[in-house]
């Protein structure tokens, strides 16, 4: 006699589906692929992809990664949904009393559990990456995590419906590619049509330190994604009439999302988070301040920041240095420090290259983006001043300009005469800020 079989309840069948529908495999694949993508988008594997130390950065990476996770989930779900057709089970299943919807829901539930577990696995890697350097947990970022999971889930539901309703082995890869292209297209829209970007199921989430998700936008996005999911699952369950209800809800929420204006100058869906931008400062002078969201980096950044401040004080009337968001003016008496976003270590507290903040701060202070016929006529001459200014402010020679000999000569002359150096810098900084090419050319003369 065979061992007693499991009960034929929905829970038992769900467990069977989890084992046999490929849900475990799909979840594992999403988790591993997602983890590889997020880790390789972090230094040292990707020197330009720094994302640790804040929820906003982690959620940005999760959102970007979901442009791959969503279509993959859709393709996996479509493949599972198409198994009845591939295995010629349609006729036999049609003779069973349990409604098609119940059957399809149970299969999709298994897929959904796999998809959610896989996406949360990726989120887990991200959270583990940011946790050691995390200083601020406000900003409603868990909502972004929820929306990212719902987005991947919605993709899987769309794929499931496609696999169920359309016959063919190419449906699974086809729906994956289609969703990838569609989400990517919506995400990269610019100009007025960019208002359609929130309709992308994945990779549509904005995230920026110093901002928080707008509650209404997040709610609208959640309704949109849930309505798309419900519509797809009902269609897969052969409930076309019932699917009209969530389809209508999806249409209404989509309309609300694309017509909701942004808050002030904030990116769509975001609103300023003043608490995240509050200054956290050293107790002793000279004062070094960072934003609350980067408070964990204050200890590491303080020594090089003070060193820089000491040199800059020779040229500018500043007595403190503070992190100021890019594009904003520092208050009087304060040197604007470069943004610390994404500068913390991965999986460890602190930062690896605090000196880089000094270079970036100086670059921000001295670099200029000028254009026009006057600058074209001047050739490379004005750019010599960049190396000179950098050397005066940091004590390090860059020699990146076209005429290093001229730069060295100028630096030597100015270092020998501090008063001349101060006068040079006093002319340079406003000229760089105002793109005064004539003055910059004059300052470049040895």
């Amino acid at each position, binding site marked *: *006699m*065979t*061992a*007693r*079989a*499991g*009960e*034929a*309840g*929905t829970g*038992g*069948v769900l467990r*069977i589906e989890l*084992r*046999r529908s490929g849900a475990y495999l799909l979840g594992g694949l999403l988790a591993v692929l997602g983890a590889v993508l997020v880790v390789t988008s972090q230094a040292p594997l990707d020197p330009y992809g720094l994302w640790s130390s804040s929820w906003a950065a982690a959620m940005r990476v999760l959102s970007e990664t979901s442009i791959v996770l969503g279509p993959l989930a859709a393709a996996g779900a479509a493949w599972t949904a198409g*198994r*009845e057709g591939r*295995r*010629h*089970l*349609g*006729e*036999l*299943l*049609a*003779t*069973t*009393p*349990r409604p098609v919807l119940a*059957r399809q829901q149970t299969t999709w539930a298994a897929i959904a559990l796999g998809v959610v577990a896989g996406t949360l696995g990726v989120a887990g890697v991200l959270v583990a990456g940011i946790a050691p350097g995390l200083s601020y947990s406000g900003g409603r970022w868990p909502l972004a995590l929820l929306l990212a999971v719902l987005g991947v889930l919605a993709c899987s539901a769309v794929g499931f419906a496609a696999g169920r309703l359309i016959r063919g082995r190419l449906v699974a890869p086809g729906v994956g590619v289609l969703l990838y292209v569609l989400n990517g297209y919506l995400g990269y829209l610019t100009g007025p049509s960019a208002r359609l970007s929130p309709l992308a199921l994945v990779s549509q989430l904005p995230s920026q330190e110093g901002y928080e998700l707008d509650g209404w936008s997040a709610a609208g996005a959640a309704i949109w994604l849930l309505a798309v999911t419900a519509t797809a699952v009902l269609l897969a369950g052969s409930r076309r009439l019932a699917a009209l209800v969530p389809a209508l809800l999806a249409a209404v929420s989509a309309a609300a999302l694309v017509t909701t204006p942004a808050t002030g100058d904030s990116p769509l869906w975001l609103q300023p988070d003043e608490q995240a931008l509050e200054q956290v400062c050293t107790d002793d002078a000279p004062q070094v301040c960072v934003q609350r969201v980067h408070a964990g980096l204050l200890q590491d950044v303080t020594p090089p920041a003070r060193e820089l401040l000491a040199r800059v004080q020779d040229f500018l009337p500043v007595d403190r240095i503070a992190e100021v968001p890019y594009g904003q003016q520092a208050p009087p008496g304060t040197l604007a420090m470069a943004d610390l976003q994404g500068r913390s270590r991965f999986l460890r507290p602190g930062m690896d290259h605090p000196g880089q903040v000094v270079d970036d701060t100086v670059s921000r202070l001295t670099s200029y983006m000028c254009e026009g016929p006057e600058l074209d006529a001047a050739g490379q001459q004005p750019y010599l001043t960049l190396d000179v200014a950098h050397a005066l402010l940091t004590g390090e020679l860059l020699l990146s300009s076209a005429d290093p000999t001229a730069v060295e000569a100028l630096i030597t002359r100015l270092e020998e005469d501090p008063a001349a150096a101060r006068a040079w810098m006093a002319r340079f900084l406003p000229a760089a800020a105002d793109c005064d090419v004539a003055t910059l050319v004059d300052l470049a003369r040895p």
Partner: protein
Amino acid sequence: MSTHDDSSGRGTGAGAGVGAGSGEGVQVCGLSVVLGRGRRARRAVSDLDLDLGVGVHGLLGPNGAGKTTLMRVLATVVPATHGQVRMLGLDVSEARERREVRRRLGYLPQTFGYYPRFTVEEFVTYFAWLKEVSGPGSGAAVARAIERVGLGDRAKDRMKTLSGGMLRRAGLAQALVNEPEVLLLDEPTAGLDPEQRLDFRALLRELGVDTTVVVSTHLVEDVASACTRVSVLDTGRLVRSCTREELANLADDHSEPDGSARPGHEHASPIELGYSALLRSHREHAAELEEPRG
């Protein structure tokens, strides 16, 4: 001896279209089924009457006779174009009653599909759930169905590891898991080896004690050894419904005038000869009816 009652399928002799009808088994009245649409439309079943009660009923007929279409109608997969189908006293054209019929129905289609990654036990459990067999006894029902088809020692094996005959038995297990009152088996012995066929026929006889079992087959031996009654179909019409003994008695009509067997048919069984005689007579009769029109 008459070999043909009524080419319309509404037989008048020897219980044509009516066999041990209980009123609770299967009643088919004036059934016609048209498959396809437009130019591709094809009448697969024409004006068919059947009344099948408890017992094992064989559906015999050549390829294209309409056996599988009739089975699919009884399985509630294909709707009737005309006529009425009642099963277990319920009208299958009504959604609510059809669902109740499905709870009490077992079906093994001609082409049996399965999920290869499922184990036998998981597959049967899955179908028990689909047939709304639930509660504390469902696990025992699954085990009993698997044991009944002789797959107890393979219950934990994946479906993809089973031989063709074992797959057929697993298919039968899913059909039996809800202890059906009507069991429809389309070519159930296809793919079984001789020993498995003997076991299978014994199982059919056992099931036929309290279940309406309808077996569609082109293997006359299945009918001879397992079926109590036989319905012969040709070109979508019921040729005759009778007991297997009555079918065997028609063998005389298949012999030469001197009583000897036709050349090449010396080793045929009486049921095979009776079946051939019935079909030949039916076709001759149909041709006679066609001639005046021509």
